[in-house]
């Protein structure tokens, strides 16, 4: 009983909470180099990844005219079936982004006085780079970049939002109204500018174990994208050319810095297992060692994969013939009975179509084929499976599985080139530079599509650039927003999507019949996301987007 008495007599029998299980106090965080840096590291988790939006492997592609999800009950269908509403939200990143913003704002306030121990972080260091101030600068630069990123993720979905440039207190009035759209753009641009000023130049400027952190070039690319969105018809209703000019200038500055380049292997841009931090990838989430992308998206006969993202026929049709002509062009040599022959090589890089070799055997999406329509509930709904992002090295449901390093690539060089071309075409029409950079993308190593024909009008060039984006940047989460910022929702998103029913008639010979997969609904309000009713209720000053 004696030890018990001693416990009982301890002054602090009911502990005061100064010590707890695992958790530490705020003073301990900022008083320790690893914890203080760890706080910023944690904010990187908020950068959204697009591989799984519904908990079952649905991608944003299935919420636009790129694909259909094989899980007919996926919440991703809320985007498509007209039920999208404040009380029925999907991909609602509102609270996630503000959580990230709180982290970076808290870090920005605390880091100048935190205990930071200078360490060498850069590939090549000068004495000036290893000082305390230089370290703080870089850390603040990362925080500014992330703040710009989180605000951008909000702005592209909801339009104008409430800017969070400070750490909110639970006791202050948090029922704040939205800032104007322009204020939001200005804030993203300003934070990008701060990041550009403070950060190391590009990926390889960081030492090998710090690659993946924000860079000057990432700041510039994000700024260019923000300005492009702001200049686009959705937000630039008066078509103020100076906005396009700003977007063009920023993209051009990026190109002129000559840091990044198009990577020589289209497939491996996204596969860090084969090409770590390749020259094309400007900024990406952490590269997890994973096989879930394959489990979710590979054709169903591949060890019980779930075949989730099924490209639609309209998307497949967007790929030109190798002669550079659209399949609708009578002179294109398109053969409806052999539709995948002589197509833009990127079709094969991004789509697992019937007979396409995947993991050393042909995909069978024909009716009654191992991956065919209706084969089981997970079977393709369109006759296609997504190929992009998938690693042929990854294995699953094996004795010992093989994983491969894949990040979600957020910013890459091809997009910057297309951003520049698009903005410049709006300012100056199809001038030489426009051709030059679109053609760079088309003629990238391993793709080698013919250059665009000379003499295109500004409108024709706009269409060609839009199609180029659709093909080059497919499944990367661009199409969903591009269609919206171009104000083309009614054109592309308010009509049925189709698939291809492929029936074998003789070995290697099939008939191809297009069929409607599902009706799609789009209305004017759907240009922007609705704020969740929950958020409106808690923050009534946040006025709901029009139409919801």
């Amino acid at each position, binding site marked *: 009983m004696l030890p018990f008495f001693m416990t009982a007599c301890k002054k602090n029998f009911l502990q005061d909470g100064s010590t707890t299980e695992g958790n530490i106090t705020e003073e301990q965080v900022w008083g320790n180099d690893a914890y203080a840096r760890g706080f910023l590291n944690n904010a990187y988790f908020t950068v959204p990844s697009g591989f799984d939006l519904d908990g079952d492997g649905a991608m944003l592609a299935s919420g636009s005219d790129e694909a259909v999800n094989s899980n007919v009950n996926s919440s991703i269908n809320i985007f498509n079936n007209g039920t999208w509403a404040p009380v029925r939200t999907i991909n609602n990143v509102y609270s996630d982004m503000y959580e990230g913003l709180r982290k970076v704002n808290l870090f920005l306030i605390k880091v100048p006085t935190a205990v930071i121990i200078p360490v060498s972080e850069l590939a090549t260091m000068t004495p000036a780079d290893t000082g305390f101030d230089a370290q703080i600068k870089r850390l603040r630069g990362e925080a500014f970049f992330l703040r710009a990123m989180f605000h951008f993720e909000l702005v592209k979905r909801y339009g104008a939002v409430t800017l969070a440039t400070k750490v*909110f207190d639970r006791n202050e009035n948090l029922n704040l109204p939205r800032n104007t759209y322009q204020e939001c753009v200005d804030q993203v641009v300003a934070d990008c500018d701060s990041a550009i000023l403070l950060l190391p130049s590009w990926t390889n400027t960081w030492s090998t174990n710090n690659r993946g952190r924000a860079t000057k070039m990432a700041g510039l690319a994000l700024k260019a994208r923000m300005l492009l969105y702001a200049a686009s018809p959705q937000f630039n209703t008066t078509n103020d050319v100076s906005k396009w000019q700003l977007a063009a200038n920023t993209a051009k500055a990026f190109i002129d810095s000559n840091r990044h380049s198009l990577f020589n292997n289209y497939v491996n841009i996204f596969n860090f297992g084969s090409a770590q931090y390749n020259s094309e990838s400007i900024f990406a989430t952490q590269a997890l060692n994973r096989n879930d992308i394959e489990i979710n998206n590979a054709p169903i006969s591949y060890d*019980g994969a779930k075949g989730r993202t099924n490209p639609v026929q309209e998307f497949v049709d967007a790929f030109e013939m190798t002669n550079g002509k659209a399949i609708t062009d009578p002179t294109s040599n398109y053969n409806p009975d052999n539709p995948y022959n002589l197509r833009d090589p990127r079709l094969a890089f991004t789509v697992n179509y019937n007979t396409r070799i995947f993991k050393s055997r042909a995909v069978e999406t024909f009716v009654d084929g191992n991956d065919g329509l209706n084969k089981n509930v997970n079977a393709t709904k369109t006759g296609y499976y997504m190929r992009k992002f998938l690693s042929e090295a990854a294995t699953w449901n094996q004795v010992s599985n093989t994983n491969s390093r894949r990040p979600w690539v957020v910013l890459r060089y091809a997009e910057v080139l297309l951003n520049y071309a698009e903005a410049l075409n709006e300012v100056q029409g199809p001038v030489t530079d426009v051709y030059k950079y679109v053609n760079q993308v088309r003629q990238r190593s391993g793709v080698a599509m013919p250059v665009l024909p000379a003499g295109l009008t500004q409108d024709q060039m706009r269409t060609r650039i839009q199609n180029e984006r659709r093909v080059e940047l497919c499944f990367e989460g661009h199409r969903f927003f591009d269609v919206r910022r171009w104000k083309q929702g009614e054109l592309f998103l308010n009509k049925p999507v189709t698939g291809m029913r492929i029936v074998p008639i003789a070995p290697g010979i099939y008939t191809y019949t297009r069929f409607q997969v599902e009706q799609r609904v789009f209305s004017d309000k759907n240009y922007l996301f609705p704020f969740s009713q929950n958020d409106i209720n808690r923050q009534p000053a946040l006025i709901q987007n029009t139409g919801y």
Partner: protein
Amino acid sequence: MNLYFKTMVILCCIFTAFNSYAQKPGTTISATGVLVDNTQKPIEGVTVFIQEKTSGIVTGADGKFSLECSTNDILIFKKEGYNTLQKPAVDFLGINVVMTPTLIDAGDNDNVFIPFGIRKKREVSASISTIKGSELPQLPLSTLNNVLSGRLPGLFIKQTGTRPGTDDATFLIRGRSSYNSNQVPLVLVDGVERDFINMDVNEIEGISVLKDAASLSWYGMAGANGVIYVTTKRGSPTDTRITLDVQGGVQTPRDQTRPVNSYNYALLYNQSLQNDGNAPRYDQATLDGYKAGTDLYKYPNNNFVDQFMKTAAPVQRYVVSVSGGNAFVRYYSLLSYYNQDGLYKGANNDKYNANTNYKRYNFRTNLDIHLNKNLDATLDVGGRVENLRYPSSGNGTFLSTIYGTPSNAFPLLNADSSYGGSSLFRNNPLAMLNENGNITDLYRTLLATMNVTQKLDFITKGLSANIFYTYDITSLFTSGFTQAYEIYEFSNSGTSTRFGNKAPLTYRSAGFSGNLRNNEFWAGLDYDRSIGQHDFKLSSRMQRAVSASPNRLDNTRINYANRLSYSFRQRYFADLVASYSGSQSFAPGNRFGWFPAVSAGWIISDENMLKSVKVLDYLKIRGSFGLVGNDGISARRYAYRNYFSRGGSQYTFGTGYNAVSNTTEVELGNPDLTWEKATKASLGFDAKLLKQSVAVSFDYFYEKRKDLLTTALLPNILGQSTVSVNDGIANYKGFETAIGYNKTFGKVNVRLNGNYTYANSNIDAINEEAGLPAYQKQANFQIGGVLQGGSFIRRFLVAEGLFQTQAEIDAAPVQRLSGVVRPGDIRYKDINADGQIDNLDFIMTDYSDVPTSYYGFGTQVSYSNFDISLQFQGVGGRTIQINDLVNSGSQSTGYINQFSKEAWVDVSGGIYPRATLGDRGNNTASSTFWLRDGDYLRLKTAEIGYTFPAGLLKSAKINSCRFYVSGFNLLTFSKLNDLPIDPEIPTSGYGSNYPYITTFAAGLSLNF
């Protein structure tokens, strides 16, 4: 309070200084006398016997007795209605012995156990219901809570599980007044927090349910949800016995999934596809194949429920107990064994058994030692060993496999004897039982209590000091076998695909996965004194409790509890309780509070004005009012402070993908956090009528609970979740009543019992979003909700049947819960009349899994050597849902289940919405369509016994022998009509839940 410790240490020293008794051998004498009452009339039928000897004599009409005994012997005189007398034999040499009649509710069997005290029922002014261990049914059940169902007013018990060893239940005392926790009552065994459901029923002396502030304030911040106070048996100086109970029985499942056969499954699947406008999946040849059933490899047709579930599983229980004692030492000792087998068929292979099974060994020894005339000590050691076995994949996975896998999914064994399976269904039940190993959880619990009382009459008469200390440990050791199997899916062309990886049978690397130590220390003073007709009983205690477990800081509790009981002429009673209680969950400076309560009782029938009312033998009115707290709030540890966590999943950078340090802010603390404050009032009476054959009691109760935690509801731009704030208020009120009847007519004894409780709760304040429509707000509704998949649903769409035609749909408001609405879908009411049905058309309701009323009644009748007892339990005002049963399944199963046969089809209609594979949002939404009346009345237990005549057994030295057959959960009456589900646990036997169980048993009870 340091004085407390000093006092205790000094007392400890005093105890050790005392000597023990010495005793001389006795000589034989003959004790004689006449037993008379206080009017000197002889008493007939008094049992007289010598302590520690079981046989005795019974006095005749003259009240005379004569007994050969030793001078050291103690004689004991017993008769119901009189206080038991106990005196040295040397005192009885032909004198008249006066036996005093017992006051009503103050006899030997009228003890009520209260915290650190015993009162006669007569003295109690608090609201306490009690049941004696001997009144509990003798049934081979693994948990005790179920035998209490419907027995006590104000105690609601709901069975929540039926699996061997885990057939759990939840308790609720009176009603709900907190919408945060489930209001779990504090369960105390012999005064400290211990699990009682795994005790053997024979260990239990009695159970008191403490319901009002007058008793609960003693526990300060731990008492607001009520207390179930279990007391274990102790030896008696007037009763020495050895008992042996042997029971065996069977448990049979009820209301299980009835799988759809392959042919019907395929038809229903095609129907589902057709409902969505899609082509059928099964062609005529396949349908014919299923119908013919000749090629079961190509056209499998399994009924996994029949194949893998037994219709009965055995259960056994054996208990031995020894008890007795004398004036110096008393003992009670028990040993029991319980074995409950699971229902899985074909699980016993030559290496191991994967059928679920529960074995339990309980033991207990309670010792009372009278060290000297001033010093008493008790030493109780109890414990149990529990052995719970189940298949490696877990009971839930195994059950969901046999309940959920379509009958045509795969053949159990392929033609080449490999295990069948498919890419969608990779669990093969045969392999799960025979090539997947098993797990055995071994729980070991040791409970030890020491209690020392020193009389301090030398300071002042009636004063005593008491120290009470417990040391409880429990551990969990997991072991078993691991093994893995592979399945093969054959395609039509004869090629196969393998899923899973075979692994040989090996011993499961075992480990200690749970360890817990609980200590409680109580010390203080008692002062019992009668001065004339004034009785005082004062108790004061300090409590220190520690709960220690690996990976966490110790949980500690401090309480100072005080109670003063006063009575005058055994007719007027008053109690004052006040505790000063502290909790580590709140900020220093803000963590202690006072919890006072008063109560009073008046035996009004003893007043002259009522003495003339012959029918009324006894009437006590009583009432109480006070404050009790609850610090069991659901918030993180030290939620009054802000913290940062480190570690966790780490972000990777660099070409080596280094995990970097990671720090993050945890949810923001609330420095003002405080405990829930329950103000409880209770007013009632106890009465006895018609020569005490009828007993009635009634209580009206009201509780208002303040400072309930409710969400802060801050805008999400804050960027951090926050600990809730104490802004909530709720109350319940209601009444409870109990009635008993006990009368003997010649050889027939009839006992009846009944009780009824009604409680209605109300949310007075809760933080809700400002923009919420009025009809969705929770305020002024009951606490509760309809149970669905572990959460409580409170808002529902109002269903208006099924759409029959497209024209109806076109004319109705647009339903935005799914992409398309077709005939056969549920039609909903447009609550806000905006022309569309969406989340704004859900309305707040009072539908709840918690009944507004619950009751029980029963009877015991004995005639000669036969006895029969029946006990019923029922609830009213309860709602269940069948949404998750009818809509069970997955994409893979096509949502086809036994209810799909009653789904709507064109022209012929149907009960349930049309079957569909995709876009199911409209028909799976929570709506009134799925609600069913959850009221039921159940024959909980029944028992028929026969006691062998004593004469037959004398030669075998057996005092008594009773044979009986009994049953549990025998009959159920509900308003579910022919819906094949159990009203109490609607999901049992479906999904991943063990079926509802009926138990039949036979037993033999011997008394030596």
